[in-house]
């Protein structure tokens, strides 16, 4: 149990009535994780802007607070006060629901991700299945936004988003199969605990496929065709303004953080300290007490890699995009399953654990 969890359990045990205690135990961890994610998003926006500025030899936001860290709060306030324009031809109901529908799955998936040792909202045994099911709803929201705007750019952005999402969904799902095979469970906690050797060692190809596909799923550069500024003005969110527009951006940042969180959980040992089982008692203690620190550090690393890629690569073409998913990633993912299954069946090297 982690320090924070121990503290929480100690305070919880002071409450006299059993039903009250159960109710609090139901609400508090959920609220804690939700507020952590929403708080982290503001830091992520600032961090991305600073990092991309560093890549492009600029300064980035540096005025508000130390190093400009409060810039995102100011932006949130500004966007709150902006007029929310709904065009005359738009489908008003879908136009309003779409940003909410994009935002909901982004936050909801954090009820399944273990952010630390014992720090998880709910450890269900079908976590990965549920995670993938929930996260694919985002696409529906994007299509809804694109269609309801009644704008040609928006519609094209929405359709592109769906085509891209369904093409990259298949290799994404297949690349996780290898990890599940080695852990023998769909629960994310079990997967993290099974990684005495990090899964990246046993599943290098799986990780590469997973990373590329999740980049595509969250519509980040080089796969940001749904909102390609140079072709589609702003894609599916062209007609959006005010806080509805901000909602799409919040969702995108949450989803990018989720990408990092899932890379960490599935391939880089989750909350575990690197080589904790080789370092003996110190390593195990570091894992047990400070899991959330390692988790956030690893996740921030992957977020920074995504920003780095954004600063480095140009956007791909639609035909290249589709061909890459179906003709390269899908066979590679199947190959990964074949090789993993054979190695795991005969118990070769690191696969035997």
């Amino acid at each position, binding site marked *: 149990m982690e320090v924070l969890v121990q503290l929480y359990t100690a305070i919880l045990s002071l409450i006299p009535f059993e039903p009250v205690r159960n109710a609090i135990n139901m609400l508090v961890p959920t609220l804690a994780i939700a507020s952590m994610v929403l708080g982290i998003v503001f830091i992520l926006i600032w961090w991305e802007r600073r990092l991309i500025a560093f890549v492009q030899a600029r300064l980035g936001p540096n005025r508000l607070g130390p190093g400009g860290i409060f810039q995102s709060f100011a932006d949130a306030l500004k966007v*709150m006060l902006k007029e929310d324009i709904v065009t005359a031809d738009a489908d008003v109901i879908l136009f309003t629901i779409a940003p909410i529908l994009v935002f909901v799955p982004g936050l909801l998936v954090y009820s399944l991700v273990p952010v630390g040792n014992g720090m998880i909202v*709910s450890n269900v045994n079908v976590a990965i299945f549920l995670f993938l099911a929930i996260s694919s709803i985002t696409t529906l929201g994007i299509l809804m936004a694109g269609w309801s*705007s009644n704008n*040609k750019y928006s519609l094209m952005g929405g359709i592109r988003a769906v085509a891209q999402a369904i093409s990259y969904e298949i290799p994404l799902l297949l690349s996780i199969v290898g990890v599940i095979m080695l852990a023998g469970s769909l629960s994310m906690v079990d997967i993290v605990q099974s990684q005495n050797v990090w899964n990246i060692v046993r599943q290098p190809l799986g990780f590469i496929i997973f990373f590329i596909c999740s980049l595509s799923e969250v519509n980040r550069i080089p796969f940001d065709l749904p909102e390609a500024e140079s072709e589609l003005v702003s894609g599916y969110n062209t007609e959006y303004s005010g806080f509805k527009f901000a909602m799409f951006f919040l969702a995108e940042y949450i989803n990018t953080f989720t990408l990092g969180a899932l890379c960490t959980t599935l391939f880089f040992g989750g909350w575990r300290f690197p080589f904790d089982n080789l370092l003996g008692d110190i390593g195990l203690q570091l894992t047990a007490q400070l899991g959330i620190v390692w988790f956030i550090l690893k996740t921030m690393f992957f977020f920074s890699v995504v920003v780095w890629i954004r600063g480095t690569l140009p956007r791909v073409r639609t035909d290249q995009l589709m061909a890459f998913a179906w003709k390269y990633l899908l066979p590679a993912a199947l190959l990964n399953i074949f090789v993993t299954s054979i190695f795991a069946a005969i118990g070769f090297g690191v696969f035997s654990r």
Partner: protein
Amino acid sequence: MESFGRIGFMLFLAFIVPTIALVLSRFLQPRFVTASKIQTYECGIKPYGSAWVQFNIRYYIYALIFVVFDIETVFLYPWAVAFKGLGLFAVIEMFLFLTILLVGFAYAWKKGALDWH
């Protein structure tokens, strides 16, 4: 039951946070509606027709292939979970299953369903 209760509460939170933000923003924002402001954006000219049109058939073919492979993946997940208990037998079974699918995949590839024209 408790674990799904918590997911339910998270779902409630995920709905209530953007709703509150949108309602709050509604009361804080100015509203000056003019005819040109609520016009659909189309590079500055008046919009030509509706955007609710038929679109490229390509997308439909990709969606069809997606459905086939999505179902395949759903079958792979229980197999992967039970893999450790089954051993080499599971490997052979899955080889057969995937081979049948790969034949269909090869056919789609040969027919040019995966190419974007």
